[in-house]
């Protein structure tokens, strides 16, 4: 299987074409913008928090298949998790796409992005939503 086939699978392309949890979120507790200035991709992450738990999460913006699919799957995964759990998932996700670690079982469908670790040019795309989540957690912690 070519790297291209490994990466651009049904899972990813369908999240790209029909992202989950996409759109505005009224009364968000935290909203944070993230971007990759080198490519112009932009994303806004909106969270509703309740006692340290993410009760609602949505995102909006534009980007490539990898960044949008990653954001879409991330929102599905972190919904109803605590911020701490979400940060642990972030760590696991980055280990997979940056360092090429075996996908942690907790990542579920996101293992479809494991191939990104072989495409250094695209790690920034895959991690954009997650870096924004980290920023959001920081913001939530200080506010």
């Amino acid at each position, binding site marked *: 299987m*070519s*790297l*291209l*086939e490994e*990466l*651009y699978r049904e899972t990813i*392309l369908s999240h*790209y*074409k029909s992202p989950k949890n996409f759109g505005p979120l009224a009364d968000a507790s935290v909203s944070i913008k993230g971007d990759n200035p*080198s*490519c*112009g*991709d*932009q994303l806004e992450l909106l969270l509703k928090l309740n006692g340290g738990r993410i009760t609602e999460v949505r995102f909006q913006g*534009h*980007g*490539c*298949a*990898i960044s949008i699919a990653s954001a879409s799957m991330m929102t599905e995964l972190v919904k109803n998790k605590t911020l701490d759990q979400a940060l642990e998932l972030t760590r696991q996700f980055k280990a997979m796409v940056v360092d090429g670690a075996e996908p942690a079982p907790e990542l579920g469908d996101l293992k479809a992005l494991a191939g990104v670790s072989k*495409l250094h*040019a*695209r790690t920034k*795309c895959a991690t954009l939503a997650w870096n924004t989540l980290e920023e959001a957690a920081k913001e939530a912690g200080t506010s």
Partner: protein
Amino acid sequence: MTSAYLIRADFPLFAARPELVYLDSTATSQKPRVVIEALEHYYREINANVHRGAYDLSVQATLAYEEARRKMARFLGADEREIIFVRNTTEALNLLVYAWGLRVLKAGDEILLTEMEHHANLVPWHLVAVHTGAKIKAIPVRGDGRLDLDSLDRLLTDRVRVVSLTHMSNVLGTVNPVAQIAKAAKEKGALVIVDGAQSAPHMPVDVTGLGADFFALSGHKMCGPTGAGVLWGRYEMLEKMQPFLGGGEMINEVYLERSSYAKPPQRFEAGTPAIAEAVALGVAAEYLMGIGMQNIWQHDRSLVDYALARLDEELPEVKTFGPRGPDRGGVIAFTLGGLHAHDVATALDQHGIAVRAGHHCAQPLHRKLGLAATARASFYLYTTRDEVDRFIEALKKVREFFKDWL
């Protein structure tokens, strides 16, 4: 022109990477052997600091550096005293903004740019606008990728103090009618600055004929090393201008609290210059002149016409930007269906085709096109027709691969 197939043999990177189809010369060009060897030769045999030496080695280094200045003057049809070595186009434009714009412009003055400018010709002017209250305006880009010259009369008011524009767009490939615009600007008494980052490498440039006051280029885009570029300026203008960077070599007398300045071009070259890089840039200019700038332009032109014709014919899902005709250089920004440019570029890379994806440092233009990003293929003297074919065949495979998602 000597066939691109033969010219390739001058570029060691293609031998090291025989499978690569390099279509990103607009970002930076590859380097011919003579340029790499000039660097090597400089460091192995004549390396010393310039200007200040009382010994033979330093004299030789100085002669090599000043010889490079003469070569760049010849390349641009200029006088050697008008050649200032800088790092790149970006530094050249910032030099003008700091040494001229920030000192001369006032609230109410207008700065006329175009909608197709590279960030290097936008961001420095923002600084001027913020600090002086001068206003930025832009000549619009028409649907066909050319400047809307009909708007020039209206835009070129008496308040316009400077017109700064790109000679050739790094996204659309458009070659702007700089001489015509410069003439109109001069009639209004405005200064004319030309961003030659894309024109200098690809077509004959005669700065005096252009009628501009300043012209900036990047060596790394014209077969030279990274770290060396040129700002050309009319001597009368340079003489009137205050320095930009302060330090060694640009001074006349220095006291603890004040200093007086040397004449141009030294006035604008503070500290130890990128000596080896300037020397090698001179060699690059000589190499290009040897092949002939007009030949290079024709070669780029024929490849871009060929590529656009095939794309139009065989890949209707591909949308390209920029004008068709003799005022179009060898750059093709494109999209494939609704795919994001990054995904297209990654897919092409898997077939050995190196194209760039993104806004190419031209966000306002992309905003105008209604896109966050495009993919971009660009050609140069070493690009072969065969490579254009491989690019198009690869693009077809990419279309096939993504066919359910276009």
